[in-house]
């Protein structure tokens, strides 16, 4: 790397030469009585200092800016580089000297797809600083030093897991001593996801459908045998069977929509949706049920139709629907469900503690994505139900999970509602947070539970002694494309 090119052969390091002569004279001058050499030495040293800086500059220029050049003369064979760059699959060319020198492996070429995948910014970057997957690094080594091609599968995890297959192969380098290797990466997320989904779906579906199916077949048997001529029992059993069949239908629907959502989870949404108008739509469908249960629905937020976020409208509606459905389900007569929408919130504001003393847990955090604006539209659905105890919070969004003691109810859920919500929000690169206050069951002491985060304020506020009102609130937030201009007075949309 430091070898000098032909043009530098005539170059004499003037600074070094004069410097050393000056130093010699300086020493003789200092040792002897005669002052002459001392002064000449100092003068020469001054001159050499000026020259030394130029020497350093020249030496630095002599080091090539780029560690290696590409094997093919891409600049002249124009079209090659463009073609490689335009490929949808990530393509890399890696160079290396020696097997043990891991800091000597450079990415000498990366096309646009590779740059986004590995977050490569500069022209040349160190291989390990872009990827550290051991299988892939091993495969690169094999291609570089054993000169063998190989297929490798690897996984990148984030909020969305992605599966990749890499093809590594040695490349000839006729012009230099550096060894080169080609890495071509192909996205296999879809195929792998389908496989996994199918297995999961079968396992879940068969397990969850077994209970209602067993009940239906049990009643069929009873109706055929003992209850054959009992019209009263027949009516009752047929009613139960219908309810179970309906439950099976709901389950299958939920499972299917969950699979669909998971399939598309790594595909960012393309449409536009306005949260306020989506809430209005949901309120229309829920108002009947709310009136039946005598539960008030209150919505606060900005005006409808003005603040559109990048989102799949149907999915947003499903999020609001599922969250409000849950809130309604656990509300008793006379209670209120409050839906609050806020725009232009930072991530910190979205995650902020709104009701101190409540147990809270982040169920989903947005992945770090380069957003045009780091602002979010926040929707919070709060009920005044019995609340969820802290130890159950971590498992909330897990499929088929039901909080202990909440299994009975007039309208049994499928246990998939929150899982669907979480996956939709994840697809939108948003976040989900739950806060809740509940009373401990009588007789049980909270020994294992985690104490709620007491707000660590500087001024000494006494901890709340009064038992807090029980509630559960889910806060979902979605990234905004930009900062919205807000009219001075935010006004409520509906009060029903």
């Amino acid at each position, binding site marked *: 790397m430091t070898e000098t090119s032909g043009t530098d052969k005539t170059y004499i390091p003037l600074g070094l030469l004069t410097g050393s002569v000056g130093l010699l004279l300086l020493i003789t001058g200092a040792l002897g009585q005669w002052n002459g050499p001392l002064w000449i030495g100092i003068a020469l040293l001054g001159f050499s200092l000026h020259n030394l800086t130029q020497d350093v500059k020249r030496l630095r220029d002599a080091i090539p800016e780029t560690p290696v050049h590409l094997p093919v003369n891409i600049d002249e064979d124009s079209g090659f580089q463009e073609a490689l760059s335009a490929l949808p699959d990530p393509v890399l060319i890696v160079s290396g000297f020696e097997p043990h020198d891991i800091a000597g492996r450079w990415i000498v070429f990366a096309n646009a797809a590779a740059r986004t995948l590995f977050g490569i910014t500069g022209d040349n970057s160190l291989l390990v600083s872009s990827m*550290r997957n051991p299988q892939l690094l091993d495969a690169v080594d094999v291609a570089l030093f054993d000169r063998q091609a190989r297929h490798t599968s690897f996984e990148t995890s984030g909020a969305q897991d992605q599966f990749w297959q890499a093809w590594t192969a040695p490349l000839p380098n006729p012009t230099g001593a550096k060894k080169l290797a080609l890495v071509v990466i192909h996205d296999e997320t879809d195929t792998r996801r389908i496989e996994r989904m199918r297995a999961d779906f079968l396992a879940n579906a068969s397990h969850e459908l077994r209970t209602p199916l067993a009940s239906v077949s049990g009643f069929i048997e009873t109706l055929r045998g003992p209850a054959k001529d009992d019209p009263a029992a027949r009516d009752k059993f047929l009613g139960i069977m219908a309810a179970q069949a309906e439950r099976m239908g709901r389950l299958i629907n939920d499972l299917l929509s969950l699979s669909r959502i998971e399939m598309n989870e790594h595909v960012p949404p393309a449409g536009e949706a306005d949260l306020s108008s989506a809430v209005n739509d949901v309120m229309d469908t829920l108002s009947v049920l709310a009136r039946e249960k005598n539960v008030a629905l209150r919505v606060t937020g900005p005006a409808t139709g003005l603040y559109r976020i990048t989102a799949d409208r149907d999915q947003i509606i499903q999020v609001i629907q599922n969250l409000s459905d849950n809130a309604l389900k656990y509300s008793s007569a006379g209670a209120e469900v409050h839906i609050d929408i806020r725009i232009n919130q930072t991530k910190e504001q979205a995650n902020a503690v709104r009701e101190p003393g409540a147990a809270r847990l982040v169920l989903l955090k947005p992945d770090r994505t380069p957003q045009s604006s780091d602002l979010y539209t926040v929707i919070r659905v709060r009920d005044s139900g019995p609340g969820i105890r802290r130890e159950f919070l971590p498992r909330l969004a897990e499929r088929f999970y039901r909080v202990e003691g909440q299994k009975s109810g007039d309208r049994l859920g499928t246990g998939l509602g929150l899982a669907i919500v979480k996956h939709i929000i994840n697809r939108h690169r948003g976040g989900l947070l739950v806060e809740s206050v509940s009373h401990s069951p009588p007789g049980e002491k909270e020994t294992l539970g985690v104490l709620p985060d007491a707000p660590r304020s500087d001024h000494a506020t006494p901890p709340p002694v009064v038992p807090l009102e029980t509630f559960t609130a889910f806060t979902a937030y979605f990234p905004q494309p930009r900062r919205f201009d807000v009219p001075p007075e935010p006004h409520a949309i509906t009060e029903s």
Partner: protein
Amino acid sequence: MNPHIVKTYGEELDQLSAEVILMGGLAEAQVADAVEAVARRDVALAQSVITRDHRLDELEKDIERKSIRLIALRQPMAADLRKTVAAMKISTSLERTGDLAKNIAKRAVIISEAEPMSPLTRSIERMGKLVSSRLRDVLDAYRSGKLDMAMTVWSSDTEVDEHYNALFRELLTYMMGDPRTISACTHILFMAKNLERIGDHATNIAEHIHYELTGEDYVEDRPKGTTV
């Protein structure tokens, strides 16, 4: 061109951090594979995690040797010295992480002989995912030298604790319900504890990054849930 060029000081430092990143990648893969072996009852994968552990040990020794050599020969100052010391400390944390992953893999082999307990192993998988993501984030922070990213990892340890506590309760119910599961449940409990410890190592690495970048120890109290 002679490949055996004399390395410059800067190159030696780069080599050191490159090895730490490489080691981080290995540790990450070990944790992910160990958890996967538990979730999928994959004995072969668990065995390969156990046999691969020595690579982490070797790398740690190598990093230590190189750091000591660098300190002795180059006498690094200020940022360079901190970089060297941080590399040494982080490699120790990563080596411990590898040991814990190896222990999880060993237990995975043992519990694969018992009846499958999917709800519990699913919890381990979930916790493993969380811990892996923290490890990934902290290594990304080290790679890119981003202090705020490291500090985000540092301050979000409570989540792992929450998961650990939830799993602990779940295990208790299982063991009380059916004493035959006690042996397998105990192994799962240790796995969870190991994952929790790996999470702690991630926060330690975040602290080392803080030291490397600012030269100051991070002394604030870490938000922490109570674990048992």
